[in-house]
């Protein structure tokens, strides 16, 4: 009788089924996340349609350059994650560690840039309920734009923080050889990370570029 794959769990008939379940399970979770962020995007688009000028005026205060740089940072981190998943599949521990570390670095860089943007917005008095001050017309609508901006980007940043924390734990586990026989957790994590990147791919143009 052939030996079962070392990573095969008892409730799966073969490793292929387990691999499929790994993928389906994460996608089921990601479907809930699509709806979670999707509802926020929908609400944002409704109010943008209702108040195009104040929203455009408010949006022009966002730092497009930093936003674009951050988008490039996240796209690069998706590349490093995809390469990391491949390295895990090839059982290349050193390459896996390097790519996971690069992903963490890029994630932290993203959060740093975002934090700097938030600091700039604080200085310009654009934070609703904390120090919002608006010259001219459309102040309530402009504050609504910034409510959406801060809530959506902070929710995204929270997903990034969780991802980085999990990835740090996975780096430690990978260092201990935990993915020598089973790369499925790395693949699963990759799906989550790519999804968070996709959310930003939509956040950037809809918040920063429609003016």
């Amino acid at each position, binding site marked *: 009788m*052939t*030996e*079962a*794959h070392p990573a095969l769990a008892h409730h799966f008939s*073969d*490793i*292929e089924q387990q*691999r*499929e379940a790994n*993928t*389906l399970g994460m*996608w*089921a979770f*990601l*479907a*809930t*996340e*699509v*709806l979670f962020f*999707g509802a926020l995007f*929908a609400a944002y*688009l*409704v109010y*943008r*349609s*209702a108040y*195009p000028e104040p929203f*455009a005026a408010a949006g022009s205060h966002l730092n*497009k350059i930093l936003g*674009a740089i951050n*988008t*490039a940072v996240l*796209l*690069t981190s*998706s*590349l490093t*994650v*995809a*390469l990391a*998943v*491949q390295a895990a*599949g*090839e059982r290349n521990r050193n390459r896996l560690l390097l790519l996971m570390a690069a992903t963490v670095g890029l994630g932290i860089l993203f959060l740093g840039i975002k934090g700097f943007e938030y600091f700039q917005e604080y200085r310009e008095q654009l934070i609703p309920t904390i120090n919002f001050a608006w010259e001219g017309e459309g102040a309530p609508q402009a504050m609504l734009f910034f409510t959406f901006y801060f809530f959506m980007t902070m929710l995204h940043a929270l997903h990034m923080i969780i991802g980085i924390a999990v990835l740090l734990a996975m780096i430690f586990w990978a260092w201990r050889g935990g993915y020598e026989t089973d*790369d499925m957790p790395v*693949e699963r994590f*990759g*799906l989550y990370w*790519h*999804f968070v*990147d*996709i959310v930003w*791919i*939509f956040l*950037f*143009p*809809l918040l*920063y*570029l*429609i*003016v």
Partner: protein
Amino acid sequence: MTTDTQPSQSHRSPRIYYIVYAALLGLLVLTVLASFLNLGTTWGVLIALTIAIAKAILVILYFMHVRESSRTTWLFVAAGFIWLAVLIGLMIVDYLSRGWFTV
């Protein structure tokens, strides 16, 4: 049955990832340039959304390996977005039917 089934992404050149990455960066440049055209809110949103959807499709098919995945996986991927379409579609119908926004 083999004892150690290799996942589908091993022994494959990473070239496809670099190509998709370059395409994603290109689309990023495109979306930033398009924002300078000042086409107004409606067209601006449409173009930005189209480019964003193209980027998302590239990430989903290639980085997330959906292109090599089973039909069942495709179904799970599609399901999330289909429900999102229902959410947005019925919401738009709701607002349009009240006459709050004109198209």
